[in-house]
């Protein structure tokens, strides 16, 4: 899968070069925004930031209303069969999009790793060939086209300086799925390093899980809280005013813990930092 992804992203870069190379740029790049159910419901600000950022970079953003949730919460809790309908819905909603961009590493990882697995498991279970085929086709259609936001910026658009302004001290928490499933590497950092006014503070034990883990947070609350407390301690130690990440679900846990601790450190999605400009700081 990582192989096909690399190929896809290379194609994407070539295509963009072709588009830009053409006179007048009549052919504007158009992407489908997968905002995710969490952002849609609880963090619309992040979705709006992605729209504003991408439009500023000359990308046309489309929001298919048929979209909903990637299915990860169901699948990771043991209800994979219930996630199948959501996977088919995702594939149908973004059928016409060559690029799907999402401000969630975890949801992007679900699409890229989880979807092919859902299809594969259906085959192992001995489901009908037609069903397996339907699932595999849906997965195959979206796996190579789905990008986490920072991947899309760095790999497809080829930018690390998005012209952003954010005059605060910030520390960056690399989320587990971004770090270990998508392999985002230093993409988010490179983007943050180019933000004017932003001072990046190193987070000790950055690669350690914050303790969210979806339903883990409520099924094992004591351990989840202990992990969260260790994470927020490290965050507070940086002295940064804000903690940023590529996923609002982790930030909901981190931010909720910080807030309960009475800390003033603000959780902020990377999209909101990158969308800020001198005229308009989010």
């Amino acid at each position, binding site marked *: 899968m990582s192989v096909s992804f690399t190929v896809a992203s290379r194609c994407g870069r070539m295509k963009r070069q072709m588009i830009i190379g053409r006179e007048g740029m009549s052919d504007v790049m158009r992407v489908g925004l997968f905002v995710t159910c969490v952002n849609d419901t609880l963090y*619309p600000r992040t979705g709006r930031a992605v729209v504003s950022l991408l439009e500023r970079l000359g990308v046309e953003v489309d929001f298919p209303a048929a979209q909903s949730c990637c299915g990860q919460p169901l699948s990771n809790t043991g209800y994979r069969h219930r996630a199948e309908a959501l996977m088919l819905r995702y594939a149908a909603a973004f059928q016409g999009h060559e690029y799907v961009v999402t401000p969630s590493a975890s949801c992007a990882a679900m699409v890229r790793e989880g979807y092919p697995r859902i299809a594969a498991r259906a085959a192992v279970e001995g489901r009908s060939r037609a069903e397996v085929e339907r699932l595999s086709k849906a997965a195959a259609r979206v796996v190579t086209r789905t990008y986490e936001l920072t991947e899309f910026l760095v790999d497809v658009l080829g930018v690390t300086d998005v012209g952003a302004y954010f005059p605060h001290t910030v520390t960056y928490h690399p989320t587990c799925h971004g770090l*270990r499933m998508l392999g985002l590497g230093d993409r988010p950092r490179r983007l943050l390093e180019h933000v004017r006014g932003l001072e990046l503070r190193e987070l000790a034990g950055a690669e350690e*899980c914050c303790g969210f883990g979806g339903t883990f*947070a409520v099924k094992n609350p004591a351990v989840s809280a*202990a992990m969260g407390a260790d994470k927020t301690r490290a965050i507070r130690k940086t002295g940064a005013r804000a903690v940023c990440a590529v996923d609002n679900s982790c930030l909901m846990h981190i931010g909720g813990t910080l807030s309960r601790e009475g800390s003033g450190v603000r959780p902020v999605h990377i999209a909101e930092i990158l969308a800020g400009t001198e005229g308009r700081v989010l």
Partner: protein
Amino acid sequence: MSRTYVGMPAFPRAAAVSAGDTTLRANLRTATHTIRAKRAEAVAELDDWDRLRAAGAAVKDRTLRHLDHYLLQLEENVTRAGGTVHWAADAAEANRIVTGLVQATGESEVVKVKSMVTQEIGLNDALERAGIRAYETDLAELIVQLGDDLPSHILVPAIHRGRSEIRDIFREHMADWGRPAPEGLTDRPADLAEAARLHLREKFLRAKVAVSGANFMVAETGTLVVVESEGNGRMCLTLPDTLISVVGIEKTVPTWRDLEIYLQLLPRSSTAERMNPYTSTWTGTTADDGPRAFHLVLLDNGRTDTLADQVGRQALRCIRCSACLNVCPVYERAGGHAYGSPYPGPIGAILTPQLRGLTSPLEESLPFASSLCGACYEVCPVAIDIPDVLVHLRERVVQGGETTIRGTRTVIKPAKGHTMERAMMRTTGWVLDHPAALRRGQRLAARARRALPRRLPGPGRAWSDTRDLPEVPPESFRDWWERTRGGDA
């Protein structure tokens, strides 16, 4: 009689207790963080690590897919080299075989090399019931045995004990088992190691029977391999007259050459060394050198049930290095005992429910004892996709389904206590599949947002006891989009 894992509570309850134990948390944090950094360095020395890892996984997969073939080959070659092979379908049978073999020698004590599998089957208790005393000789196992405790780590069973606790255990209990601790014993690790050396030496010198496990068994040659550090393994493997090795059937590798992969992967993953101090290999018996009688007890005890699960069987690749424990944020806070078996940490969370079956609330809770952060998979030297198997087992817990118990295919019912969750997931799944309904819900919440509490009652407290809830925004993204970009819905 030592403590047992029987009747332990489900993971969240036990883990909550240990997460609140500050001494334990500090001990585990120091130990796991020390080894974590060292492992990373040891692995970084080899620029073909990923290729070794892929080969390590592939050789184990080949073995597992043809396990009957390789076990027969192993049996033939061990027998030809002068060993005797026994087969044990479960713990009780393995214990019976070993007890009988010890009794046949007329001895009433044995020395033991650290062995996970004999912990798994409860061999020491079985021997004790037959009037045979088993002396653990690995330093950490000794600490556990003297402290009447349970192991909490694969490599370092007494990881939950700090140095001063170990000193106290030695001072208090060594005399009950033989040579007492030296006068004025300090808590310097070197002094503690010296105390263990003195305490155990007399036992090594007089032992007539030893019990061991093995890290690898080579089918094509009948060779067994024990990888260790202290030399207690060498003592047990070479001084006594009779050696009994109890080994899980999944420890087989096809060829002598295959060891070139694992003897690179294991030490670096485990103790973060280029090579561990001692590795012993033996093939049957050797005239005038080492034990005159060698017995190999091949153990199933749930391994074939695990093998029957196409997704879960990768857990049988495990070479017990403990790298996954050392990087696991959940293990670090929950401690090993919460996992209720000799196999703690991420690997235990997928191995125990498969070896034992989903037979009690403990086993049913283990697949959920993970935030799915993926650190375990990243460090696993045989590429066991632990998060994937965890999710797979979660399905089995919440939905039931086909599984194999003691060799028989069975359909199990969903575990108790998930009824409400199932109903919730059904509703959630439906709502998410109907965006119009999702929108209605969002609008309802937005209207009531001022009245929504920051803390939840009832089951919601699991979240809001330590975390504030996010504020519900006045307008969902989809409503904003529709309002500003004009309904493309």
